[in-house]
């Protein structure tokens, strides 16, 4: 309509260089538009059409403004690594990078060796500022990554299988031998979550404040950490589970089973949303892309498969990797940890074709347990059997953070305010669904069909049953005769059946009428006409 004409007109006037700029703006615009506009031509209601036209125009303007101001609001463009000449990016080693990069960044490359306390697993806060690490033998530590300062370190004296931060760095949950425990930032034990039992993996949904846990038998539990209520307790029924991962796009929990299936769960239903057969062997690792459409899964048969979650189809199969852990970075790079080698794959052509980007091998004999990209930084941290290591992966982190979403330079006052605001915006567990943009849309119009015979029968039975449950008043003074009670009950049951029988009679009457009509059309032969009974004269 009017908008299109305007765009066409301006395209003629602009000089060629400005046309390129506007093309660039268009790609940025697509990011902010959040999908296609509504089809207004199909509407017949003029008032609604006018109102929607105004609204669509407003959306367009706000998206254009956001795209235009990106230039000033988000000055930095992120990291990159370009190979010159013959060299390939995947052959570049970390010490080569150290020479090229500034001192502050080279401080992010280190190895921390803690020999006796078992394979280390780690978790980051959403801002990437704090890291929680836990060794299998009970060593738990919270580290401030900016200043490399150890905030708190403790020994829980039990086997620790997993550790997660809750909504901020003040609280973290540790999956210990018998139960998961919640600790304060100072190491004070706040809660012992007895209902969960011995869990093997923990995950935290930060928008919903739900702590999800899974044990080796495949029992999935959701607990609300603000009220302490257990929201869901489901038996997956698909066998032994090794992996659990949250899809940050829609809050769905994906569990990988030993039969090669991945099932996706939401806290409000006992049946899984999706069950996909991914691999021939047990699933060893799962990871989700931040845009919510891609999932990477690795099976024991040494293949990494990239799935498109909208169509549930394989986009790419990468052979030759038996990755025990997978992670996607904010910019879409995939890290796979196999043995003592970490491989980083990137999709550079934009067509979801992942190819080798970088690699790093740590000392031989160290087994990588978990790889995790640090949010908003170009850093990959690997937890292995002898401690943890950190390496630089240029181009993996989001360069521009939003203060109100995740702030690596958060002060304590900002942290407190954010906690309150996120509690006010806490989502109810019903909002977890495969397609989160369905909220606020119309349910598709379904034409109601006539109930089938079985349905009518079922309704009749249900009505009779409900009538039978009614308790009749027991009369006194000799009026409570058994025969009378039985008659009364019979009358009630007949009354309940009456509407169904009437409907049935109507239907039969219609059918009989149709039959009669058909009958009347066929004429009797002349010789038999005298035997036709004539209607008696009144």
């Amino acid at each position, binding site marked *: 309509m009017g908008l299109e004409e305007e765009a066409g007109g301006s395209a003629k006037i602009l000089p060629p260089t400005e046309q390129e700029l506007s093309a660039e703006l268009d790609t940025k615009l697509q*990011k*902010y538009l*959040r999908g296609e506009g509504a089809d207004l031509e199909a509407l017949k209601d003029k*008032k609604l059409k006018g109102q929607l036209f105004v609204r669509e125009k407003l959306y367009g303007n706000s998206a254009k403004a*956001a795209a235009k101001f990106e230039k000033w*609001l*988000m000055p*930095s463009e*992120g*990291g*990159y*690594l*370009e*190979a*010159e000449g013959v*060299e390939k990016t995947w052959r*570049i080693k970390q010490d*080569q*990078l150290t020479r*090229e*990069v*500034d001192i*502050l*960044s080279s401080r992010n490359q280190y190895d921390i060796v803690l020999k006796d306390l078992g394979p280390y697993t780690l978790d980051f806060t959403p801002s990437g500022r704090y890291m929680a690490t836990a060794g299998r033998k009970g060593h738990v530590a919270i580290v401030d990554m*900016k200043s490399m300062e150890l905030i708190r370190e403790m020994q829980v004296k039990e086997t620790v299988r997993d550790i997660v931060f809750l909504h901020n760095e003040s609280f973290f949950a540790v999956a210990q031998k018998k139960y998961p425990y919640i600790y304060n930032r100072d190491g004070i034990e706040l809660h012992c979550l007895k209902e969960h039992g011995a869990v093997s993996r923990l995950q935290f949904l930060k*928008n919903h404040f739900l702590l999800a846990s899974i044990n080796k038998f495949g029992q999935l539990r959701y607990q609300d950490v603000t009220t302490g209520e257990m929201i869901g307790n489901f038996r997956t029924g698909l066998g032994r589970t090794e992996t659990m991962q949250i899809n940050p*796009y*829609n*809050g769905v929990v994906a569990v990988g089973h030993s039969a090669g299936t991945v099932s996706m769960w939401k806290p409000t239903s006992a049946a899984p949303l999706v069950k996909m057969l991914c691999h021939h062997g047990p699933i060893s690792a799962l990871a989700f892309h*931040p*845009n*919510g459409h891609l999932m990477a899964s690795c099976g024991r048969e040494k293949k990494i498969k990239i799935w498109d979650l909208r169509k549930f189809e394989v986009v790419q199969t990468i052979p030759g990797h038996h990755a025990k852990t997978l992670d996607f970075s904010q910019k879409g790079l995939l890290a796979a940890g196999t043995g003592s080698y970490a491989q980083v794959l990137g999709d550079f052509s934009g067509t979801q074709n992942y190819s080798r980007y970088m690699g790093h091998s740590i000392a031989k004999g160290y087994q990588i347990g978990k790889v995790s990209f640090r949010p*908003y*930084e*170009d850093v990959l941290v690997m937890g292995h059997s002898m401690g943890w290591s950190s390496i*630089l992966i*240029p181009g993996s*982190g*989001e*360069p*521009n*953070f*939003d*203060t*109100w*979403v*995740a702030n*690596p*330079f958060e*002060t304590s006052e*900002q942290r407190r305010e954010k906690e309150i605001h996120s509690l*006010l*915006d*806490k*989502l*109810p567990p019903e*909002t977890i669904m495969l397609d*989160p943009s369905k*909220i*606020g849309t119309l349910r598709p119009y379904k034409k109601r069909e006539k109930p089938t015979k079985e349905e009518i029968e079922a309704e009749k039975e249900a009505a009779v049953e409900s009538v039978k449950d009614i308790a009749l008043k027991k009369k006194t003074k000799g009026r409570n005769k058994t025969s009378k009670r039985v008659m009364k009950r019979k009358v009630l049951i007949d009354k309940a059946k009456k509407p169904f029988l009437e409907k049935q009679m109507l239907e039969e009457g219609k059918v009989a009428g149709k039959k009669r009509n058909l009958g009347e059309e066929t004429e009797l032969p002349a010789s038999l006409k005298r035997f036709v009974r004539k209607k008696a004269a009144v």
Partner: protein
Amino acid sequence: MKVKVISRSTDEFTRERSQDLQRVFRNFDPKLRPQEKAVEYVRALNAAKLEKIFARPFIGAMDGHIDAISCMAKNPNFLKGIFSGSMDGDIRLWDIASRKTVCQFPGHQGAVRGLTASTDGSTLISCGTDCTCCLINVLSFPSCHADCACLHIQANAVYVGKNAYWAVDHQWGGDLFATTGARVEIWNHNRSQPVNTFEWGTDTVISVRFNPGEPNLLATSASDRSIALYDLRMSTPARKLIMQTRTNSIAWNPMEPLNFTAANEDCSCYSYDARKLDEAKCVHKDHVSAVMDIDYSPTGREFVTGSYDRTVRIFPYNGGHSREIYHTKRMQRVFCVKFSSDASYIISGSDDTNLRLWKAKASEQMGVLLPREQKKHEYQEAVKNRYKHLPEVKRIVRHRHLPRPIYKAKELRRTVIDAEKKKEERRKAHSTPGSIVTESVRKRRIIREVE
């Protein structure tokens, strides 16, 4: 090889001194905000609930008259004052801020039927059933302070006519005013006899309003159920529209001066385009008894109506149903309503001798707001409007407590209307298609248009 790695220096991202504001960085990328629709929905729900918590529209009552209030007038130059006239002839000027009487004017022997102020705010004109029309100079008294002593002022001029007067209105930007009673009479401030007279039919003309955009155009309603438009430049009346029931009051839309809304006896208000009177632009239905008075907001986007059923309702200018209803146990039949000139307050005058002051937006925070507060309010309003069609939010936004008689009356009306509709449908179904034609609601109550 070319390498660049993200490295943020603390100085660039934190503040220099403790007196500075904290630095804020923004990235509006939707990727950083998963499940934004669900978050917006939760915020809409919370906004709806908070709105209901803060909804306290009644500010206060202005007590002083000893008989029912029949009419009110706004002073166009003075925001804080309102004139009111009662059925015993008493005219008062009120200070809205302190809710006290500033001045008491001598008034009339009988009921005061009409009050109006001239456009420059210097003269107050009142007319009553004692066949007199008073002109009072209102610039001479001191500015309105909350004083117990009410000044009594003498009238500047009293003009006597032949019949009782029913309504008065002043021309916008001119110095003519119109009184109605047996006929429509146009007066000048200085003449003691009307300059011009219009007569169409023999019935009393009960209300009059001058058009804000076209100063020579005026609309009147008469007790023969008609609405007539007059042009002062012509010597004859321009157009007449006859409806099925009587119109009690008319108000022109100040922002779209060609449209006016008529408050009718059949519990609805009809909005018309003055150029095309054969069909109503919009029918506003929600009252359960006759609508007595109507006034537009200066924004032209909504209007307030007062009705015989003891409620005051606020309607959008193009919507069929009211967005708000105000009622109190003590407020009896509402005879006049006025929207304040800053579109923030509503003043209603009723049968129980009180003028009541209400907020136009029930949960609005009055007073000076910080820009942050203002932005927050705007955001909450916008997010609530985006999700107000969803069942949970709709239930909270729509909820209004109705007094029992109104609730019952509404149900009764609903039953009656549904029954009539069903009958009509059945008649249609059992007759030849096309023989029975349903008239649209906008035309149904109009009998005919006369030139």
